[in-house]
């Protein structure tokens, strides 16, 4: 791909990283794996340290932990599931923080790779959520869950021929797919956007006075979109968790 006569790196170059060791094998350890591990460590450390003292008046890290728990319980669990969803709060909590941390590495200097821009992580997390919400549904309704999932209440019998296949496709096939692609494509798009302005800035800066002045434009765009990516990283983690909550609620709710 060429961009205003500058060479734009092919897509493979900006998301494929050479392995630090074990290159080419199944145990390859590259930047993406490093980001997974760092995000995991951050989640474990924050809650390990924040939950250590359990002081009545929280200080320091415990404040952050309590803020996060409040945010998940009030903002996601109570809004989507209500009281019966409280037992899913720990799962949603760790899901939210893990996705947020893997996203935010897209703008942290030196690393600058949102690990969720590779489809493996979003796909795995969406499948994990898929197993959990259908599992919760079967646990709640027994085998009646299949009827609960496929037959919406108040549909005339004649329409069932049409409704049941549509519900099956949307609930069991499209839902995990869109859950995956939403996170993956958002983070990939953000990453490509940053690379585009980075490449433009790099090509224009320092190649003469006029080009350097013009190069200020993509530079400021780069700064602006980096700030924008902070918002996107948070929002996509929030939406991913929110949707997981909505799907769990759809599986465990009883219609009246």
């Amino acid at each position, binding site marked *: 791909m060429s961009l205003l006569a500058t060479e734009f790196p092919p897509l493979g170059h900006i998301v494929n990283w050479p392995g630090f060791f074990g290159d080419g094998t199944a145990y390859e350890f590259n930047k993406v794996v490093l980001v997974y591990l760092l995000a995991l460590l951050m989640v474990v450390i924050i809650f390990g340290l924040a939950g250590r003292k359990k002081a009545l008046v929280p200080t320091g890290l415990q404040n952050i932990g309590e803020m996060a728990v409040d945010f998940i319980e009030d*903002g996601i669990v109570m809004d989507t599931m209500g009281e019966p969803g409280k037992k899913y709060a720990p799962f949603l909590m760790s899901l939210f923080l893990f996705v947020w941390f893997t996203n935010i590495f897209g703008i942290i200097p030196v690393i600058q790779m949102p690990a969720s821009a590779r489809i493996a992580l979003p796909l795995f997390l969406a499948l994990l959520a898929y197993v959990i919400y259908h599992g919760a549904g079967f646990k709640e309704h027994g085998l009646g869950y299949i009827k609960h999932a496929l037959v919406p209440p108040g549909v005339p019998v004649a329409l069932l021929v049409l409704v049941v296949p549509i519900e099956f496709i949307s609930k069991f096939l499209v839902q995990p797919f869109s859950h995956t692609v*939403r996170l993956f*494509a958002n983070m990939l798009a953000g990453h490509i956007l940053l690379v585009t302005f980075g490449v433009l800035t790099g090509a224009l800066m320092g190649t003469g006075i006029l080009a350097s002045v013009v190069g200020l434009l993509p530079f400021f765009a780069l700064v602006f979109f980096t700030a924008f990516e902070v918002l996107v990283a948070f929002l996509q983690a929030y*939406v991913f968790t929110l949707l997981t909550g909505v799907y769990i609620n759809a599986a465990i709710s009883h219609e009246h």
Partner: protein
Amino acid sequence: MSAIVLAQAAAESGLTNKGVAALTYGLGAIGPGIGIGYLVGQSVQAMARQPESAGMVRTTMFLGIAFVEALALIGFVVFFLAGA
């Protein structure tokens, strides 16, 4: 059908596969663009009229955005698959 017509038109006008992919993604982004604009506009109006229900409206708004946005994102992925 329309894809074949589009491909023929592209072949005649000398457009590359990448050009068509980019153009098609642009077309595919129109619908979600209108959708999200309308959705957020209405949500802001609802929040302004009834500030006490702002929390509920905001959650529902993000959910709606997530669903509408999925269309644009699928278009984005198709753009890469088709343009490769």
